[in-house]
């Protein structure tokens, strides 16, 4: 589903160059709930941005659904993101002037989908995230947890191959965090969508099927906390990835 091969990235500051990711290799299976765990400065956000095509790596390849996104032009990437990638942000990033339903429909607007079909899909997703009654409200009228549910629904509307979630529970209290993680797990199971969650919280990472730990820009470990859900033993898989 998603393959990262020999990925390295350096930030240039004048003549100086700081290596933030070194020789990263791993792959994510279709329908897997995957966590990128790391402390601040470990390079996890940079890795997410590279995988989402928002940055170009200094070296290496990223394949999503067998497409090498590193080679794509900006417009091609926009088109690719539109159909293959969903996003869930830490701060929800809903457009304040659009209603909840319109926010969810937005990715389909860029695909020129008929308004009636967009509406139907958005309402269905709102039901799946448990807030069907909020459809015509504006984001400012919702709580943080509800806004994140809207953000999740928005990420799913294009039925993407992979959804990137950047600290999806970072702005939420413990109870809401649990609710959101439950929703993500349920949607992962029912819709068979691949989720890649970037987090610094072990508790959040523990909820996923596969954890990749980053430290100082290097892949530290890869393991599967819920063995029963994995196709292969975690250790084996980690070895395979690290190899």
């Amino acid at each position: 589903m998603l393959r990262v091969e020999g990925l390295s990235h350096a930030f240039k500051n004048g003549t100086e160059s700081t290596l933030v990711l070194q020789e990263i290799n791993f792959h994510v299976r279709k329908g897997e709930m995957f966590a990128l765990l790391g402390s601040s400065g470990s390079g996890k956000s940079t890795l997410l941005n590279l995988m989402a095509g928002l940055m170009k790596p200094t070296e290496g390849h990223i394949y999503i659904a067998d497409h090498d996104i590193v080679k794509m032009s900006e417009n091609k990437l926009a088109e690719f993101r539109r159909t293959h990638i969903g996003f869930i942000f830490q701060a929800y990033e809903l457009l304040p002037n659009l209603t909840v339903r319109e926010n969810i429909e937005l990715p389909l607007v860029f695909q020129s989908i008929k308004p009636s079909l967009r509406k139907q899909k958005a309402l269905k997703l709102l039901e799946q995230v448990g807030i069907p009654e909020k459809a015509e409200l504006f984001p400012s009228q919702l709580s943080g947890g509800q806004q994140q549910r809207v953000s999740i629904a928005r990420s799913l509307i294009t039925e993407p191959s992979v959804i990137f979630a950047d600290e999806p529970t970072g702005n939420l209290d413990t109870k809401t965090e649990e609710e959101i993680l439950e929703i993500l797990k349920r949607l992962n199971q029912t819709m068979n969508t691949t989720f890649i969650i970037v987090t610094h919280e072990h508790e959040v990472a523990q909820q996923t099927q596969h954890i990749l730990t980053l430290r100082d820009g290097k892949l530290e470990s890869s393991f599967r906390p819920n063995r029963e859900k994995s196709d292969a033993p975690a250790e084996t898989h980690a070895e395979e990835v690290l190899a």
Partner: protein
Amino acid sequence: MRISDLTRLSWDQVRRRKVVTMLCAAGLSIGCAAIILAMSIGESTQKIVESELNEFLKMDEITVMADNGGGSDEAKKRGLITEQKLEIMRNLKHVKAVAPYQPFEYTQYATVDNKQGSANIIATDLNSLVSFGSTFMQGQADDGDVTGVVLSYGATMGLIDPDDRQKLYDAMDRNPYDPSVQEQYRNMMVVPTSMFNQQIQFTSTDENGKQRTSSAYRVIGVLKKPKGQSDMNISFDRTIYVSMETAELLKSELKPSSDAAESTVTFNSVKIKVDAEENVKQVEEKLKKLTVSTQTNLLQREQLEEQFAVFKAIAIGAGVFILIIASISIIVAMTMSTYQRRRQIGIMKVLGANLSQIRNMFIIEAALLGLLGGLLGILFSYWIVWSINALILSLNNGQTDISIFIPYSAIPVGMTFAIMTGILSGIYPAVSASRTDALTAIKRD
């Protein structure tokens, strides 16, 4: 991306960002109003001057005169305006009316109660007066009545007893700077006398100093007071229209020595009324084939149009200049707005919006600002025109036909300029918005 979605998203921004919208729309509306006003004032002034010219120069009329050729008798004879030629002229296409037009001479006349005045006597076909644009205030034309005359409204003004007139002149001589006496004189010049059905007599003095007085003639009609002119101006147009027969009679009474025989079969000059101004040239060409001289006032009109074209070009240039200034304010306001909306643009890009979609959103937003500015500009221009007209009316004590109007063509022209300025000014901010780096935009500190 659907046009309806693009428009809706752009309109949302226009509605939400009230200050930017107001700033941009205000600038554009001033430019748009300037263009509409420039066109309106130019067109209205041209129409006013044209109608004044028509009033005095009669653009849709042709004066036909006898053509004396090279001076030989044969050529003179060929160039005469005869009854036959008159008949041909009447049957020409686009000719509405034909009437002989023989100025007699400036002649004194007096009423029964000895009020005196003087007027230009013109011999014509009285029945054609209406066809030539005159309207009767009282009475009507009757060519059969040889003693009947028709007076212009000006010919009924300023009639006064000679003794009273003399007294006033004396008073003016004594006190030339006394405003009350001058006021009295001005009033005397414009006071109308009820002349309908009154009898008048004409007097003239021959070269030997002998005074001759005609028999009594009856005023069978008085023409309507012309609109849009001051009373003093109207009092200068003192004309008495008589039929050709009456003219012959008058001539025999006042100038018995002149040769009247020739003039009964030929005419010195004839006036032709054409159905529309644009057909004047065509009719004139045909008339020239009858070996007669013609005269129109089209040249004055052409000169006038040239002058107004220059005036309009300058005025529209000023409007365009204002729009250019306005466009700078739009570029600044929209670029600022782009900067403030970087995060939103970034989110849209992350969600799959491509460069052209972002660019189009901003360009449509700019076009909507142009549309709003244009609509406001139209409202402003109507309001300004209404104010100017109210001012003109109040300055003329409510008695004027002069008014500024907004020609229909000015509205789409002003609107197009406003929208185009909006779009052109929006291109730079739109391109810069589409180039926003999504990652930088969504990054949080």
